[in-house]
C-alpha cells in the first residue's frame, strides 16, 4: 500500500528520496502524538464536545475520540502542549490526563490483537463452511458424496488449522521446552491428532472425520484467548502510560551558568536550581532563596512547610513560591525517593504470588486429560488389537475433554466484569486483581489525595467583612501559592471584586504584600503578618487596622468518599484510615466520614507494618492510597487501588487505577468482583459437568463427530452466556 502513495520527492527517479521521505514521515508521526485519557467520556455528545473544542484550538489539526478506550488522539503542531489541551477540556468539564504517546504507539497499532482477531476470523469462516458440509454428512450422506464432503472439509480445515492454530502450537512448544505441561499442550495435541486421524479416515473412506470439531475447537479457544488479550491490553494501555511525574531533568548551576542536565549526571555537592512549581529532583540542602514546599505526596501533610537557607529537602517535594538553590546531598539511587522505591521492592517480593483460579484449574486438569487419553488408547488397543480404532477413540477423548469451555470460562467473565468496572472508572491492571478484590474484608484508606482531593479550600468566607475579602482577593490573585489560589478562586466564585492594591509583591516563603490606600496589607504566614498561629491549615491577612485575621482551610473530601465508606461498612467491611498528616485534620475527616478506626502521623514504614500486621491476623486488605508514602503499603496489601492523580510509583505498585474523581463506585467494584468470582466458579462447574456426561461416551467409543461438536458448542455458548449475566 505504501508503494502506491505519492512520492514526497519531486524527482521520481531519485534514489535518495526514500531517506527524505522517512524523515518527513518521522516528523509527521512526531507531531501527531498527543494522546489524552478521558475517564468521563461516555456518549455521542461527549465525542462532539471534545472533538469540537480541541479542533478549535490553534495549532490542532485533528482530534479523534476513541470511546472504547476512553481516550482522544490529537494531531497538532509541535508547540501545542498537553497542558493546553487538558486546560481546554477542563473548561468544558472533562478531566483529562496525558498519556505517553511513545509507549502508547505499541498498543495503538495493536499488532498482536489484530493478529489474534484475524486468526479468529479465519477459523470462524472455515468453521461455518465445514459445518455446512458436516450437516449433510450427519444427516446421512453416503459413499461418494460423504467422501467428497470429507475431502472438501480437509481442504478447508488443514490450512485453517495451520494458520489459526499457530498461537497454541507456539506456546505448547515453548512450555514443552521448559518441561512443563500447560493448557496448550493438550490443545495442540488434540488439534494435530484430530486432523491427522481425520485425514487418514478420509483417505480410507471412513465414516467419521473430526475436521469440524478441530476447527470449531480452534475457533472457541481463539475467542477465549482474544478476550483475555483484550482485557489485558486495555489495562496495560492506560495504566502504565499515564505520564510519569518524576522529573527526569534538573537545572544545574555551575559558575553562575545554568544548564539542564539529566538527573543521572548530578553528583553530590552540585548546585541545583528549582523554580516555583517544580519538583525537587534530588535530596539536598537549601543554599539560597526562601520558599514554601509541599510535602503532601511524600508525607501526607497538607500544610506547606517553610524552607530557607539550611533547610533539608527531599526528592519529590514541590517548591511552591520562590526559586531555591540546593546543594545536592544525595542523587539518583540514594535519594529518599529511591529508598522508598526500595521499600516497595522488598514489600512486593514478600507478597506471595497469587495463583489464579484458572491456573490452579489448568494445573490439575491437563495431566488428567493426557492420562485419560492414553488410558483409553491402551485399553482399546489391548481389548481389540485394532490400532485405528484405538487412535480414533483417543482422539475423540482429547477433543471432548479439550478445555474449550474452560478456556472461555475465565476470560469471558473477566472481560465482562472489567468492562463493567471500566465504565465505573476502574481500570484493572492485573489479571488476578478481580479475584483478589473479591476476597477483601478490610479496607485501608490514605487521607490526602485519596479520601480528600488534596486541594485546600477556604472555610467560612462569609464570616469576614467585605472590605477584608476584597483586599484578600487582590493579594491572593498575585500569587501562585496553592492557598492563595484557593482563596482567589473561592472569592471569584462568591463574586467578590478585588480591591485596588498597589505595589503588590510576593515575598517568597512568607506571603504577599501591597499598599491599599495608605496602609500596608499582607497575606501570608502568621509570624510574618504578626498573628498568633491558629490550629490547622491557615493563612493570615493583616489590613493594617485591628488584629490580623486567619483564613482557615479544609481539604475537601473526594466526591463519593462518604458514600463509599458507608457502603463498605454496610457490606460488613472493616474500614481503617491511616494518614501521615497531623492529628486534627485526620480526626475531623474520620468523624465526617464515620470512620472509627484511624491513626495520624503514620510514616510509610508504619503503614506497611500495620498492613502486614492485619494480614498476619488473617485479614485480606484492600489498600487505597496515592502518595509515595503509601507505595510500600500498596505493595504489601492483598490488593490495592490508587487514583489516576497519584504519583507514578503509587500507580505502578497498585493493581487497580481509579480513573475518575468519584470514589463512590468502590463498594460496587467489590460487589462486581465477588459476583465475577462466583460466575467463574459456576463456569468451571458447567464445563466439568459437560465433560462428566461426554467423556464416558467417548471412552466407550460411542462418540461421533456430531456428539463432539454438540458438546463443545453448547458448553462454550452456555459458559459465555453465563458470563454475560454479570450485573
Amino acid at each position: 500500500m505504501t508503494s502506491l502513495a505519492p512520492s514526497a520527492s519531486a524527482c521520481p527517479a531519485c534514489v535518495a528520496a526514500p531517506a527524505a521521505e522517512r524523515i518527513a514521515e518521522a516528523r509527521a508521526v512526531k507531531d501527531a502524538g498527543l494522546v489524552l485519557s478521558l475517564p468521563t467520556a461516555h456518549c455521542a455528545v461527549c465525542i462532539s464536545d471534545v472533538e469540537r473544542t480541541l479542533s478549535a484550538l490553534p495549532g490542532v489539526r485533528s482530534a479523534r475520540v476513541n470511546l472504547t478506550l476512553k481516550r482522544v488522539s490529537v494531531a497538532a503542531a509541535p508547540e501545542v502542549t498537553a497542558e493546553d489541551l487538558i486546560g481546554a477540556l477542563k473548561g468544558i468539564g472533562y478531566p483529562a490526563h496525558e498519556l505517553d504517546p511513545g509507549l502508547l504507539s505499541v498498543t495503538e497499532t495493536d499488532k498482536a490483537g489484530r493478529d489474534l482477531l484475524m486468526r479468529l476470523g479465519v477459523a470462524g469462516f472455515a468453521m461455518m463452511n465445514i459445518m455446512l458440509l458436516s450437516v449433510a454428512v450427519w444427516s446421512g450422506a453416503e459413499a461418494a458424496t460423504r467422501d467428497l464432503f470429507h475431502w472438501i472439509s480437509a481442504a478447508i480445515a488443514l490450512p485453517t488449522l495451520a494458520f489459526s492454530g499457530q498461537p497454541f502450537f507456539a506456546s505448547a512448544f515453548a512450555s514443552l521446552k521448559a518441561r512443563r505441561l500447560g493448557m496448550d499442550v493438550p490443545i495442540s495435541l488434540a488439534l494435530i491428532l484430530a486432523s491427522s486421524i481425520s485425514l487418514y479416515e478420509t483417505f480410507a473412506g471412513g465414516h467419521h472425520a473430526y475436521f469440524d470439531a478441530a476447527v470449531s475447537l480452534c475457533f472457541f479457544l481463539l475467542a477465549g484467548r482474544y478476550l483475555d488479550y483484550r482485557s489485558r491490553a486495555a489495562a496495560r494501555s492506560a495504566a502504565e502510560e499515564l505520564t510519569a511525574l518524576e522529573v527526569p531533568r534538573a537545572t544545574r548551576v555551575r559558575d553562575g551558568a545554568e544548564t539542564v542536565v539529566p538527573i543521572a549526571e548530578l553528583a553530590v555537592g552540585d548546585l541545583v536550581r528549582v523554580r516555583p512549581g517544580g519538583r525537587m529532583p534530588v535530596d539536598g540542602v537549601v543554599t539560597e532563596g526562601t520558599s514554601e514546599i509541599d510535602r503532601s505526596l511524600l508525607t501526607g501533610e497538607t500544610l506547606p512547610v517553610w524552607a530557607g537557607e539550611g533547610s533539608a529537602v527531599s526528592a519529590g517535594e514541590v517548591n511552591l513560591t520562590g526559586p531555591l538553590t540546593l546543594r545536592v546531598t544525595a542523587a539518583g539511587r540514594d535519594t529518599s525517593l529511591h529508598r522508598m522505591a526500595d521499600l516497595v521492592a522488598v514489600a512486593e517480593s514478600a507478597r506471595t504470588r497469587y495463583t489464579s483460579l484458572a491456573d490452579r484449574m489448568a494445573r490439575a486438569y491437563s495431566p488428567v486429560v493426557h492420562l485419560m487419553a492414553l488410558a483409553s488408547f491402551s485399553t482399546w488397543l489391548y481389548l481389540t488389537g485394532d490400532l485405528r480404532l484405538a487412535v480414533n477413540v483417543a482422539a475423540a477423548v482429547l477433543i471432548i475433554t479439550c478445555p474449550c469451555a474452560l478456556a472461555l470460562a475465565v476470560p469471558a467473565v473477566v472481560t465482562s466484569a472489567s468492562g463493567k468496572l471500566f465504565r465505573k472508572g476502574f481500570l484493572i491492571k492485573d489479571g488476578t486483581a478481580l479475584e483478589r478484590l473479591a476476597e477483601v474484608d478490610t479496607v485501608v484508606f490514605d487521607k490526602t489525595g485519596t479520601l480528600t482531593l488534596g486541594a485546600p479550600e477556604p472555610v467560612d468566607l462569609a464570616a469576614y467583612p467585605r472590605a477584608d475579602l476584597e483586599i484578600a482577593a487582590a493579594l491572593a490573585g498575585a500569587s501562585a501559592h496553592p492557598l492563595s489560589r484557593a482563596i482567589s478562586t473561592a472569592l471569584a466564585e462568591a463574586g467578590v471584586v478585588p480591591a485596588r492594591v498597589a505595589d503588590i509583591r510576593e515575598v517568597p516563603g512568607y506571603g504577599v504584600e501591597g499598599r491599599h490606600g495608605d496602609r500596608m496589607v499582607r497575606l501570608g504566614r502568621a509570624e510574618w503578618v504578626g498573628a498568633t498561629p491558629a490550629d490547622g491549615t491557615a493563612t493570615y491577612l493583616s489590613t493594617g487596622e485591628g488584629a490580623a485575621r486567619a483564613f482557615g482551610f479544609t481539604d475537601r473530601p473526594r466526591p463519593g468518599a462518604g458514600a463509599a465508606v458507608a457502603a463498605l461498612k454496610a457490606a460488613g467491611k472493616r474500614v481503617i484510615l491511616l494518614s501521615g498528616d497531623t492529628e486534627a485534620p485526620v480526626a475531623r475527616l474520620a468523624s465526617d466520614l464515620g470512620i472509627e478506626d484511624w491513626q495520624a502521623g503514620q510514616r510509610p514504614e508504619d503503614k506497611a507494618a500495620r498492613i502486614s500486621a492485619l494480614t498476619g491476623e488473617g485479614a485480606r486488605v484492600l489498600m487505597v492510597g496515592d502518595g509515595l508514602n503509601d507505595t510500600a503499603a500498596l505493595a504489601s496489601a492483598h490488593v490495592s487501588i490508587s487514583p489516576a492523580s497519584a504519583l507514578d510509583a503509587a500507580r505502578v505498585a497498585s493493581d487497580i487505577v481509579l480513573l475518575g474523581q468519584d470514589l463512590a463506585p468502590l463498594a460496587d467494584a467489590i460487589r462486581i468482583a465477588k459476583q465475577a468470582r462466583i460466575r467463574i466458579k459456576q463456569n468451571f462447574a458447567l464445563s466439568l459437568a459437560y465433560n462428566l456426561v461426554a467423556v464416558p461416551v467417548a471412552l466407550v467409543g460411542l462418540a461421533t463427530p456430531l456428539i463432539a461438536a454438540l458438546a463443545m458448542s453448547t458448553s462454550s455458548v452456555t459458559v459465555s452466556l453465563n458470563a454475560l449475566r454479570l450485573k
Partner: protein
Amino acid sequence: MEMLAILIPVSLLLGGLGLVAFLWALKHRQYEDPEGDSHRILKKDWDDRPKP
C-alpha cells in the same frame, strides 16, 4: 445431485467473500472503537455534507 457441483462452489465463494470483507475491515481499523462508532452514527455533525 448435480446441483451440488454448483451449490458447493457457490457456498464456498460466499464464505470466502465474507472472509475477505472481514479481513478488509480489520486492516482498515474498523474494529478500533466499536463503542464510539455506535454513538457516532447518532451525531448530526456531517448529516448535510460529507466530512471533508
